[in-house]
């Protein structure tokens, strides 16, 4: 009788463990570490705010706020006037995707294979992003990563609109 009770308890325990493990191993319930980058960020110069979002499997960042949204030369909203394609020079900088095509490398904890666009010069750089304590290290480079420049971006915690 005692043996039977033990068996029932064991089966019950196993069933409970199975239930718990099936919950924790469900892929849908596991958050992708790459998604930690999603949010609104401010570069060190404070001139802009960039919203990073995920589209498909890649990460993109677009300018959502500019400290000086108006171009003093034209008295109109700033546009991508340095774009190599003349027909795309009217695209407003507010809303512009300056970070493109980043994928998250789980092993190195880096967002790689992306590019960063500097609208002030019209230059496009390869870019790799790392994150520590809600600070992004954005390293732009041409060709060799070691010869690049790193900027730090801080996360903005915006209040919800009522």
């Amino acid at each position, binding site marked *: 009788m005692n043996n039977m009770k033990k068996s029932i308890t064991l089966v019950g325990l196993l069933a409970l463990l199975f239930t718990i493990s099936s919950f924790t191993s469900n892929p849908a319930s596991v958050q992708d570490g790459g998604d930690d980058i999603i949010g609104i960020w401010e570069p060190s110069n404070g001139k802009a705010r960039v919203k990073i*979002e995920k*589209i498909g499997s*890649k990460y*993109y960042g677009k300018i959502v706020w500019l400290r000086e949204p108006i171009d003093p030369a034209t008295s109109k909203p700033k546009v991508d006037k340095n774009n190599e394609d003349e027909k795309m020079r*009217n*695209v407003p900088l*507010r*809303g512009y995707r300056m970070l*493109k095509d980043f994928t998250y490398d789980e092993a190195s904890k880096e967002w790689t294979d992306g590019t960063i666009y500097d609208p002030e010069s019209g230059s496009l750089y390869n870019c790799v992003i790392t994150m520590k304590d809600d600070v992004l290290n954005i390293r732009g480079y041409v060709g060799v990563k070691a010869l690049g420049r790193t900027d730090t971006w801080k996360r903005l915690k915006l209040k919800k609109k009522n």
Partner: protein
Amino acid sequence: MKLIQLTILCFGLLSMMVSCSPEANNSKEFSIDTVLTASGPLFEGSNTCQAEISSNIAEYIKENGISKEQIVDITLKSAAASIDTSNLNLVESINLQVFSDNFPMQNVAFANVEEGSQIVQLEVADVQEQLKAILFDGKSYIIADATIKEDLDDDLNLPMNLNFSINYHK
């Protein structure tokens, strides 16, 4: 005499080179009608409307008996967006971009939207790199970054007509 023979030989070689080159000698235009959607509620500023377009193109070339290997290049010739009457004065600008899982996102068309416009003709980019590769790379997406003037509680739908030119050889 030798000069004439040499000239004929050169012409012969030149014409052979031209006839053997892989340049496209056929062109077809095809259009895709799709609806790009951003799920609301949306905040004032830039919002991303999105649609997948790879299946439309695969279907088109299949229907027309063209194989992927025959295609030399694809270019976007025109893009037009329709604005819903309820959003007539809401959308400020539309920036159209394409990308796929393995190829980078690129701007292909843009328009500032005039108030009250129901049909918006977008200015198409001169520089269109790797469009063929993007469109045939598994899943390819088209997105429109639509800048809106004020918050919107509902979804934003942008019906879009895209005209592509497809250059291929037989």
